[in-house]
């Protein structure tokens, strides 16, 4: 191996063998423009199809220009990144791409966040020199409950394809058609809803333009807030508070819980609640289920299904319904916190308020796009009325706050409403990979052993590695735990279980990188893993600052069981807090 020397724009640089020209240039502060290139270094995934040709450079002795993102340096290589030949080529290629892109930036939901727009500004494009009325490739629009595809805006960077296939192994998206009509789409250009898509939305998170965008219910929420006959309540997921600030220029990892509550109240929500409360409730049910299965197993019941799999992540639920329909009895039947919240809100809380179910509107603020799909699932509706009416993302909440003339930075911190605003540290850590299982362990340990925990932090369950394993002793009993985030890692674990290679008691899975903090509804991190890390730290900081850190100690949860539910896994819980899964395999 060893190092090699290259000369870029007359600057000598020593780089590791195998480095690309793009990387070498970066090393000496030369910022070569890129478009299709994407480096998700925390996932060890690089997208460099060499397709956009924006990053081309001149290499001495080479006939044509070289794509710097995918051309390796060779010893003694001489590179020019800003010769007139290069600049003209880049500008011409960008004009070509723009000539096949709708010029409607002003009304595009990605305006201001669009890589193509940014390049056009950077290159100073003022006119696209093409034939008048040049043909533009157009495609059928595709709307799903979670995300919209407007492929007229697709530039064939293939980032979504890489994420969908290489990272998530969902295989819903790939390039179809040829030549000018090439586009990324589900097979046979079918709708996303007919494809194996899990609505994880990670494709949306990496789309450089407005081709893939979230489905947005904000207008419906505004209408509900303005309707005097409706009581509108909102729940906010744990990961939102660790990222929302970024949309207002704050550093990643800035916790804005109090400002967020204040903003929501100012927007006119009648009650501002916390999904963390429902996360505590989830632990009561899922933890009880885990203990039930483990106890049976320890007592020699061979039919008991182990490991138990978490079921909070809706993209993960979709994934196993499509790809592992033979294992539908393995995951926990506990509904996700979003749905537990909705279900309790429209029964228990509606009764407290004396409001009819139809007049209570439940809104959720989620870091997630799959939640939009989840709340539309038929099994979460009563007579057609959904438990959660609308789910919007962190980014959409930011837009809503901005459009309501709220000066977010200046807001004074406020507290969540009660009873469903009270939560423990266990509920907070649902937002990160490993957090759900740690929360479950905190409760299950105490219930199983009857002893108080000496330590609350389970460092062995934490971290950002894609697949992690740990063994926790419940007294004398070892509990083997597996954790995976990103669906590709989940598939590896599941395959291992299906083949009988693993011996876990419990497995936690989250579809997005880092868990919900890296959800597709969060502010875009552009592949910068330090952003994920900062949000991760913020979540644990919030947990550490909580006075109560175990779900079963949440006084309002205790009260909920006393007043309404009875006991975990009881009759009422069964109806309101548990669900079942469907075989949705496609091929």
């Amino acid at each position, binding site marked *: 191996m060893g190092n090699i020397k290259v000369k870029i724009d007359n600057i000598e640089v020593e780089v590791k063998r195998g480095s690309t020209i793009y990387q070498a240039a970066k090393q000496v502060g030369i910022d070569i423009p890129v478009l299709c290139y994407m480096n998700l270094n925390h996932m060890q995934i690089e997208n*460099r*199809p*060499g*397709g*956009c*040709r*924006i990053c*081309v450079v001149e290499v001495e002795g080479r006939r*044509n*220009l070289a*794509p710097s993102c*995918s*051309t*390796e340096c060779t010893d003694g290589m001489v590179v020019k990144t800003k010769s007139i*030949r290069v600049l*003209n*080529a880049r500008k*011409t*290629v960008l004009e*070509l*791409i723009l*000539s*096949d892109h709708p010029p409607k930036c002003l009304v595009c939901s990605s305006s201001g966040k669009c890589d193509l727009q940014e390049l056009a500004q950077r290159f100073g494009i003022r006119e696209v*020199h*093409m*034939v008048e009325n*040049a*043909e533009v490739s157009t495609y059928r629009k595709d709307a799903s409950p979670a995300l919209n595809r407007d492929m007229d805006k697709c*530039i*064939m960077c293939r980032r979504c394809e890489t994420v969908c296939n290489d990272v998530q192994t969902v295989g819903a998206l*790939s*390039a179809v*058609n*040829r*030549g*000018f*009509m*090439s586009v990324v789409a589900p097979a046979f250009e079918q709708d996303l809803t007919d494809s194996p898509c899990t609505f994880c939305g990670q494709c949306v998170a990496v789309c450089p333009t407005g081709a893939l965008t979230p489905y947005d219910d904000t207008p419906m929420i505004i209408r509900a807030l303005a309707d005097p006959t409706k009581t509108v309540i909102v729940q906010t997921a744990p990961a939102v508070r660790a990222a929302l600030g970024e949309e207002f220029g704050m550093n990643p990892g800035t916790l804005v819980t109090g400002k967020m509550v204040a903003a929501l109240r100012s927007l006119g929500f009648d009650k501002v609640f916390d999904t963390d409360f429902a996360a505590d409730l989830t632990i009561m049910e899922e933890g009880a289920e885990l203990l039930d299965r483990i106890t049976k197993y320890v007592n020699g019941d061979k039919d008991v299904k182990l490991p138990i799999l978490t079921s909070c992540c809706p993209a993960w639920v979709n994934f196993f319904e499509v790809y592992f329909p033979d294992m539908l009895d393995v995951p926990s039947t506990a509904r996700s916190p979003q749905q537990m919240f909705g279900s309790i809100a429209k029964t228990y809380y509606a009764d407290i308020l004396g409001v009819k179910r139809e007049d209570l509107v439940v809104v959720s603020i989620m870091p997630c796009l799959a939640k939009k799909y989840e709340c539309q699932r038929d099994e979460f509706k009563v007579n057609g009325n959904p438990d959660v009416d609308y789910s919007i993302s962190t980014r959409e909440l930011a837009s809503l706050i901005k459009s309501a003339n709220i000066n977010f930075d200046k807001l004074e911190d406020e507290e969540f409403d009660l009873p469903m605003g009270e939560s423990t540290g266990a509920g907070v850590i649902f937002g990160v990979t490993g957090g759900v299982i740690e929360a479950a362990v905190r409760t299950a340990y105490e219930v199983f052993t009857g002893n108080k925990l000496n330590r609350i932090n389970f460092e062995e369950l934490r971290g950002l590695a894609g697949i992690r394993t740990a063994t926790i002793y419940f007294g004398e009993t070892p509990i083997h735990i597996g954790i995976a985030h990103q669906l590709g890692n989940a598939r590896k674990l599941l395959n291992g279980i299906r083949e009988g290679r693993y011996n876990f008691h419990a497995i936690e899975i989250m579809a997005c990188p880092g868990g919900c903090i890296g959800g597709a509804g969060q502010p875009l991190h552009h592949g910068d893993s330090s952003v994920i890390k900062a949000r991760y730290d913020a979540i644990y900081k919030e947990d550490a600052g909580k006075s109560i850190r175990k779900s079963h100690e949440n006084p309002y949860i205790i009260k909920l069981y006393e007043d309404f539910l009875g006991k975990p896994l009881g009759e009422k819980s069964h109806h309101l807090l548990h669900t079942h899964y469907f075989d949705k395999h496609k091929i």
Partner: protein
Amino acid sequence: MAQYKMHLLVCGGTGCRASQSEKVVENLNSEIKKQGLENDAQVVTTGCFGFCEKGPIVKIIPDNTFYTQVTPEDCAEIVSEHVLKGRRVHRLLYEDPETQKHIEDSKHMGFYQKQIRIALRNCGFIDPENIDEYIARDGYAALGKVLTEMTPSEAIDLLKKSGLRGRGGGGFPTGLKWEIAASNKSDVKYVVCNADEGDPGAFMDRSILEGDSHSIIEAMAINGYCIGAQYGLVYIRAEYPLAIKRLQTAIAQAKEYGLLGENILGTNFSFDIELKYGAGAFVCGEETALIHSMEGLRGEPTVKPPFPAEKGYLGKPTNVNNVETFANIPVIFLKGAEWFASIGTEKSKGTKVFALAGKINNVGLIEVPMGITLREVIFEIGGGIKDGKKFKAVQTGGPSGGCLTEKHLDTPIDFDNLLAAGSMMGSGGMIVMDEDDCMVSIAKFYLEFTVEESCGKCAPCRVGNKRLHELLEKICNGKGTEDDLEHLKNLSNVIKDTSLCGLGQTSPNPVLSTLEHFQDEYLAHVRERICAAGSCKALKLYTIIADKCTGCTACTRACPVAAITGEKRQPHIIDVDKCIRCGACYDKCKFSAIYVQ
């Protein structure tokens, strides 16, 4: 075994079969039987003779009689006259277009005189479905020699010395390619034969596979031995059914003879060949795209390096060569590197097969030594331009090549000269154009092909070629400006400079070469709105010659857009801006008063 006095070779290539050559074989056989000549004459279905213009071809040996355009009805006469009585059927002999004389011995035909047939050596000579006939022509002797007398590195050295360069288009030195593949260590390696012939009008690979499939099998096995590969794959277009059938037959025969499979010829070397079918995408001729297509992925290229020699089929070192390249290999090993290197020019050794097409008298497949001039090919072998018209240009290298003109006629043809002249060897398509061809339209035609065939992966090829085509269309429609010509040039250069694979890197060649050599024609289109060749409909100018117009008003009534006005019995006038150049007035006018420019 019967000792035949006479062999009747009937072309069984796709072209001749389309004009009933199978029926010719059937009739010849039944006539021979009827006359009781079964022990004297044998009918052999062979591969292509190359002289497709005049098919079906029947060649009789030993006297080299060359019958053209033979119909099933001619067979009785051929047998009763030629086979029985030894008298040639003169009306079926090839007639020289210049002297109008029938040529008795095919050696004297202009079409064959300057050809040297190495890759096509067995095409039109042996029955491709009979391994014994191939073996009788020293078939598999080269494989035997390499396996038993040479080490892989000796064999590669010999190939390097021969100077053979890839015949698929790029002209990369074959020996070097093998050496690189051999140097990459791996348990599993692959040899791939690229039979995804895609240039419009080119059919040499198909002809070789149809006429001499064993030579490809032999060469691939030699290749396998040299680089340490155990498996061979032929990536062949599914729309070549005859070639597929013959290849399958040949593979089965070779296995039966122990020339493929385990321990070939008693050595430790084992090699097997499998066919992979392509769906006919032009871009799948590019080796990385071809490999992806074989792997079941989308047929699109990836950035090189890594080259297939390092990371190819299923990630293993893979050597990809084209059919014609392989066809040269066995002969080189039998006759030696020096012999091969003695043919051709300094940097381009051996011969090249070209598919002659367009406005030329002898359309067909020819094999000529490198260094031959375009003049020799077009006017001697090709028999000159059809209908006595004037030569204007020749497009070499298919859609990736460029147009060469009068001034290039005496340039010796080889890889480097063609490149220097702004064209390329490509796979050997050669399309001849005459004075009636509009060069802007020709460029547009090729771009139409590239737009269709672009895989869509990289922006310059996906969008750029589309825009080039739109610009050319605009010019052909009489809406072009001089700025458009500048734009055309810049766009072409950028597409060449930035495209990912060979397709986009060469697709603007037809535009650039015509812009260079026929600038006046482009200028006439944009400045004067004139298409001298008269092929751009929108540029036709209809005017009424006042002296001839009688004012009969027939044209006025015929005009669908009311562009013609005038008083009765007075000369009429066409409003050029309104005219849509439909020609209705021209057809209606009985007095030849309408003039078309």
